[in-house]
């Protein structure tokens, strides 16, 4: 018998050891891949969500909601624009919502270290277009997760009357901490209603 060669039993034992090592390696590799996937999706999330939010705010629509029973041109003149804001929540109308392609009421809310987002079309047949609200079946989506110390702050326009500037800000800032890094997103709101003011003023004078 040729003793210099390996016996099948020896090869078998070697293969078992190799397969054990390989299995362990495979498991580690899969874990590593999952980790990379998670990290890459997280790193992609940030610029995507920033871009979505930027478009959302840039397309702020100066939509007038009905405050009283009778909706009059005077209310448009008095800038009753739908824009509710606080440190933790902001609600306004945008013509570039994230999911729909139609004019929508949108809401961003900071809750439990998350930034939640929801939208509802203004001219949805189930909606009251004069007093738009979020319907019961409106779904909420997580835009940002694992954020700490998050808050909205607002900057008023300096060259506009107080009744507008107190309602609709010029800049919206979203500050938060994520993975011990401070973030500040700054969004600009486009003003485009000078004409409406002029028109309603002239209309009021002629009536």
């Amino acid at each position, binding site marked *: 018998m040729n003793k210099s060669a390996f016996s099948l039993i020896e090869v078998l034992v070697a293969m078992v050891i190799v397969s054990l090592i390989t299995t362990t390696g495979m498991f580690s590799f899969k874990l590593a891949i999952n980790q*990379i996937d998670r990290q890459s999706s997280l790193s992609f999330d940030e610029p995507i969500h920033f871009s979505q939010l930027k478009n959302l705010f840039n397309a702020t629509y100066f939509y007038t909601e009905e405050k009283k029973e009778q909706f009059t041109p005077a209310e448009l003149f008095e800038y009753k624009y739908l824009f509710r804001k606080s440190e933790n929540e902001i609600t306004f109308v945008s013509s570039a919502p994230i999911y729909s392609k139609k004019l929508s009421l949108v809401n961003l809310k900071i809750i439990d270290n998350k930034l939640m987002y929801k939208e509802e079309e*203004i001219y949805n047949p189930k909606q009251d277009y004069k007093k738009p609200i979020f319907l019961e079946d409106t779904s909420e989506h997580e835009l940002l997760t694992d954020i700490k110390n998050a808050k909205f702050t607002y900057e008023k326009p300096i060259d506009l009357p107080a009744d507008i500037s107190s309602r609709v800000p010029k800049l919206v800032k979203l500050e938060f901490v994520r993975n011990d890094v401070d973030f500040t997103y700054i969004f600009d709101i486009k003003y485009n209603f000078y004409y409406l003011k002029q028109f309603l003023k002239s209309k009021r004078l002629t009536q």
Partner: protein
Amino acid sequence: MRNRKAFALAMVLWISAILMASTIYLLGMYKKSVTNAQDLNDKLVAELNCDSYIDRLKFYALTGRYSQNYVQNDLEGFPSTLVLNNTFKNLDENVSIRLRSGGQMLSFYDSNILTLNHLIHFYTKDRLNYNDPYQDWLDLDSNSLLNGAENGYYFTFTKQYSCSNIGVIQHPEELFLIKNFKDIDEGVRSEIIKNFHFVNHSGLNVWMIKPKDIKKYIIISDFDLTQLSVLYQNDPIKYVYSLQVLLAKNGLDQASQSPSYVIDGDINVKYRNSRVKKQFSFYFQNSYKTPYLSYKNYLSTD
């Protein structure tokens, strides 16, 4: 002994097969992961490039010098002159843009009964009266026109709503709450939204129509269309004037041209295998003092 060897050989072969299958599975998983990440990265870069170009173009348009149908500015990555002729121009091999001006669009005042019905009929292919319900929707009184509808009509729906009654509509989508408009199919609706621009102008809603679509609205000979196309490329204001004459012949006598408050456009951005296409509109402050291009200004510089 032979049996033991055969068993061991079989085991070696099985284990080899399992190892090979595992390797193939791992490679597949790795490849999928890398491909997904690459696609996502490409899409993201294309999106961000597109947004960046739009922002820079906004700066270019808002600070540029306008004359006739072009705008001039000095900005890195952009040519010194951009023509507002509604045709695509390549900024580089991956980016192309198309610009058009509000001054090159045609305006219709909503008070023109014939115009409103005429325009909507081109899309809906019906003969319903759209003007009366529209006027009733806007006016402050509660008297219904012959084919119109006041609150009583809208109160009969399961989800009741009332007329706007504020003299203006707040958004083009509001149209589709109005009697007869509300029965328009979703596909036709999106075509109307896409082709019509609503601008509050001089106390009226002005409907601006893109010149390239004018063949949908009037009967026009090929000769006239060719002449218009040449004017459109070279002299947009004269183009609109010529078009007005043609429209008047078709009974659309209240059509007019409006000053430019808006620049409208499309941008295509490519990055590796990803493509992003976006539409944008830059609105200038709506004041008579600040249209960047108007009929009056154009005549004075001509």
